[in-house]
């Protein structure tokens, strides 16, 4: 290991790096924790949503009279009940939002654009009446030709989802509309000259299927809005402040008039950074004057939410015979779903990011088609381009006869390496993860018949951004920490740990909660691997303010100069001429005298955290391919990820395990299957098969810790980059096992069998 990698034995921290029980643990193992669907209020109605049976159709008219007349029905709404939104892209390009699109995704207006697109909604006295009312709504559709596949959607004669959509990012602007929402290009150096100077060039094309985030909890919420124009929502989401902002905007309300309570969230993986049922429940509640609850079915979740994009990609890499990469070119075409906004920009940026390549061109197309609008999924975009790039890297290594890990290590980026999109890399970590796998004994372990080994690396930005935290010293000296970050997998524990470490008190002296939108400052979503970094900084800042206040109080109690008091080991200590003679004051002792020294002790910190450091991961996968069935069994999986610093290593390992297993599902099983009419054929967990326990071996997580100097404890983020290399690692292992390169995901048994039966070796 490099010197800058933390040696776990040398850690001097007392709480950070330990594995305590999470504060929200007991309610989650006893069934008492309340998720999105678990809230109820007196007088509550049930909402339900009518969804399009067509992949693409014009809505001629909607007649809701019969539904309204059904006894027990309290309201029926359509898109006409929501205010129109301005057509504009708001926010940074990578994550831009267009409310004209969003309101149409919540409730179709002129056209339905995918099977499952919401068309109308009802509120009724119970689920059965609500469901009966939906069947009484008469929608007159004019079915239109549809398009599902991204390459088909890009053809000039493809049916258009938006008749006036002109591709952005092309100069001069095209004179006719298309399904291509946007083209982006990043260029570094002179790719043409780079390829001309290459000794070997490999060019390959790939396709990937859209996959769903697959969270086990369907979207659900309860809304209580009143005639005065104020309202409350209890919702499961990755960001209750975002729910608040979107609902307010879509209903034409002030943000301050909406209060969102954070329900526990039953998985999100990016898919719950956007809203679906919340504004519908809110509007139904406002219309009826009753609380309204809406919970999606699993079929709704598959047909109407998520997934991430499917893609069609071509990657070309040129190398010198010694293994140096001299040029790379990637063209990434992404399905955005029914509305613009696939993660293709991330894909174009991340694909070649792990490597130091002097000449790069990376082109992306954001393409609409008649599928549900794509939503973020774990390192959105990066795993897709990584699959193409890392598969090609494998082929390049084979062509020049080089070990695939040593090939990656030779070209690995480091601090100072120029990226294709502008800035230079500011952090190491890539090479360290490659070395962690290279040095792992498994890399040299023998393989049996029909077995193969694959490796791959990946990059993800990791985010910072806006977060808020409060830290309050209670009357007895215990500490209450509140943040605005939804806890999706143990963040209450890591917040409490960072607070305890900073204050110098024991972990069980600190309790951490997630506060509602009125009780804490704005906090961006739990996503982008940002919470432990950005919200962690807010917690530490709030703790430091509290420490400053505690020192002031101690100075008052001792009647000494404030400058002579320091905070050390959980106590105020006097450093003046009486140092060592005055008994230090504990948090408890200072808290006991709070009233006579100025009142309650607490602080809030709101930050816009910069200095996030990217995540790198390198993975090894061993598979065995059954030549009779084409089924691929995962024998071994090692994920080495640079996390900067693991605050609670168990939950960090859990992120690595979970990301990899999602990647295995993406590689081998998961896909959206459509019939010729554009209907989704596998909208359930039986036919959309996510990995189950018996599919898998133990995943081995290797935590590489190259600390981030911009975080008090070195955190980089843990949640996402683990999924980036996974599909390529599996694909490279399958290629190694059968000697044939599959270029489409998923590598389901029929495709593997077809490859085995084909003559060509790849």
């Amino acid at each position: 290991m490099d010197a800058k990698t933390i040696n776990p034995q040398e850690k001097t921290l007392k709480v950070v790096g330990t594995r305590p029980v999470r504060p929200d643990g007991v309610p989650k193992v006893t069934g008492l924790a309340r998720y999105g669907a678990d809230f109820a209020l007196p007088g509550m109605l049930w909402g339900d949503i009518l969804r399009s049976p067509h992949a693409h159709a014009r809505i001629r008219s909607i007649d809701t009279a019969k539904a309204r007349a059904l006894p027990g029905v309290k309201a029926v709404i359509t898109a006409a009940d929501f205010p129109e939104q301005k057509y504009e892209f708001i926010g940074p390009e990578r994550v831009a939002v267009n409310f004209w699109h969003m309101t149409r995704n919540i409730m179709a207006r002129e056209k339905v654009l995918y099977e499952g697109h919401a068309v109308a909604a009802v509120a009724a006295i119970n689920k059965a009446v609500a469901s009966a009312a939906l069947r009484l709504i008469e929608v007159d559709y004019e079915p239109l030709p549809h398009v599902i596949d991204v390459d088909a959607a890009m053809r000039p004669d493809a049916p258009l989802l938006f008749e006036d959509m002109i591709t952005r990012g092309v100069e001069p602007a095209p004179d006719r509309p298309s399904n291509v929402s946007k083209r982006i290009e990043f260029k570094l150096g002179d790719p043409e000259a780079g390829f001309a100077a290459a000794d070997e060039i490999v060019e390959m094309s790939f396709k990937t299927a859209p996959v769903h985030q697959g969270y086990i909890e369907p979207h659900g919420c309860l809304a209580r809005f009143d005639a005065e124009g104020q309202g409350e929502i209890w919702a499961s989401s990755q960001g209750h402040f975002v729910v608040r902002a979107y609902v307010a905007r879509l209903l034409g309300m002030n943000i301050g008039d909406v209060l969102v309570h954070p329900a526990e969230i039953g998985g999100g993986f990016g898919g719950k950074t956007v809203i679906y049922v919340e504004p519908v429940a809110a509007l139904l509640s406002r219309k009826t004057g009753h609380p309204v609850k809406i919970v999606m079915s699993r079929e709704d979740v598959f047909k109407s939410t998520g997934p991430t994009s499917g893609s069609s990609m071509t990657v070309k890499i040129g190398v010198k015979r010694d293994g140096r990469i001299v040029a790379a070119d990637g063209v990434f075409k992404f399905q955005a779903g029914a509305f613009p906004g696939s993660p293709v920009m991330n894909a174009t940026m991340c694909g070649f990011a792990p490597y130091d390549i002097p000449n790069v061109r990376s082109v992306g197309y954001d393409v609409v088609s008649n599928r549900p609008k794509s939503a973020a999924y774990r390192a959105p975009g990066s795993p897709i381009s990584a699959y193409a790039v890392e598969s090609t890297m494998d082929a390049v290594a084979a062509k020049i006869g080089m070990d695939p890990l040593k090939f990656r290590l030779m070209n690995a980026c480091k601090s100072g390496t120029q990226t294709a999109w502008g800035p230079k890399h500011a952090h190491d970590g890539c090479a360290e993860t490659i070395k962690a796998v290279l040095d792992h004994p498994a890399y040299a372990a023998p393989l049996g018949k029909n077995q193969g080994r694959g490796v791959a690396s990946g990059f993800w930005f990791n985010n910072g951004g806006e977060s808020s935290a409060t830290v309050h010293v209670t009357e007895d000296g215990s500490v209450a920490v509140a943040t605005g970050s939804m806890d999706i997998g143990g963040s209450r524990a890591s917040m409490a740990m960072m607070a305890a470490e900073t204050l110098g008190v024991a972990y069980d002296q600190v309790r951490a909660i997630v506060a509602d939108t009125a009780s804490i400052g704005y906090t961006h979503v739990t996503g982008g691997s940002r919470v432990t970094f950005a919200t962690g900084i807010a917690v530490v800042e709030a703790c430091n303010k509290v420490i400053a206040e505690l020192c002031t109080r101690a100075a008052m109690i001792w009647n000494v100069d404030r400058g002579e008091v320091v905070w050390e080991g959980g106590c105020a200590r006097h450093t003046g001429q009486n140092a060592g003679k005055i008994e230090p004051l504990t948090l408890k002792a200072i808290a006991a005298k709070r009233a006579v020294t100025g009142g309650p002790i607490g602080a809030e910190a709101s930050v816009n955290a910069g200095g996030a450091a990217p995540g790198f991961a390198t993975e090894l996968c061993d598979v065995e391919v059954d030549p009779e069935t084409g089924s691929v069994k995962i024998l071994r999986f090692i994920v080495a990820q640079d996390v900067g610093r693991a605050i609670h290593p168990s939950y960090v390992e859990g992120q690595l395990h979970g990301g990899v297993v999602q990647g295995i599902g993406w590689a081998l099983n998961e896909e959206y299957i459509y019939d010729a009419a554009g209907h989704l054929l596998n909208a359930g967990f039986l036919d959309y098969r996510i990995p189950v326990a018996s599919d898998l071996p133990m995943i081995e997580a290797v935590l590489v810790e190259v600390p981030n100097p911009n975080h008090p404890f070195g955190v980089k983020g843990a949640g996402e980059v683990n999924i980036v290399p996974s599909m390529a690692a599996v694909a490279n292992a399958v290629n190694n096992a059968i000697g044939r390169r599959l270029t489409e995901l998923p590598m389901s048994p029929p495709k593997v069998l077809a490859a085995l039966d084909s003559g060509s070796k790849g």
Partner: protein
Amino acid sequence: MAKHHVTATLNGNAVEYLCETQQTLLDVLRDELQLTGTKEGCGTGDCGACSVTVDGRLVCSCLVLGVEAQGKKIETIEGMAAGESLHPLQRKFLEHAALQCGVCTPGVLIASRALLARNPDPTEEEVRFWLAGNLCRCTGYNKIIEAVLDAAREMRGS
């Protein structure tokens, strides 16, 4: 149509409720009896989040009608701990960080208890196959399997 009157034993207590013919046991637990610890992940018996036991048998409560519980003993997650004392499986799940979001956890715990009742000393492979009907999207199953094996060890007293 009039609702059905059902009497059953729920977590050791006598319980009676009214339910419609089409209401599942899961609907009854969540909507009529306000026991929301049992989760609905799919409603089609594919994910195991709604696992409960009926007369000791592990079932998906979304595939059982409320009326079918007549005279039966139902055990849900809310009955797993004894007062302040967590079941060893619950404790081991916390110690091993075997949950992230926690929404599959009630079903996984109920299913794991049913496994250990019939096989107190399962192998890793047996745990994996028994829990194959309980989907977890967060953990990759590693820590769930470790927690179940550790709880089994403790419960055997070894």
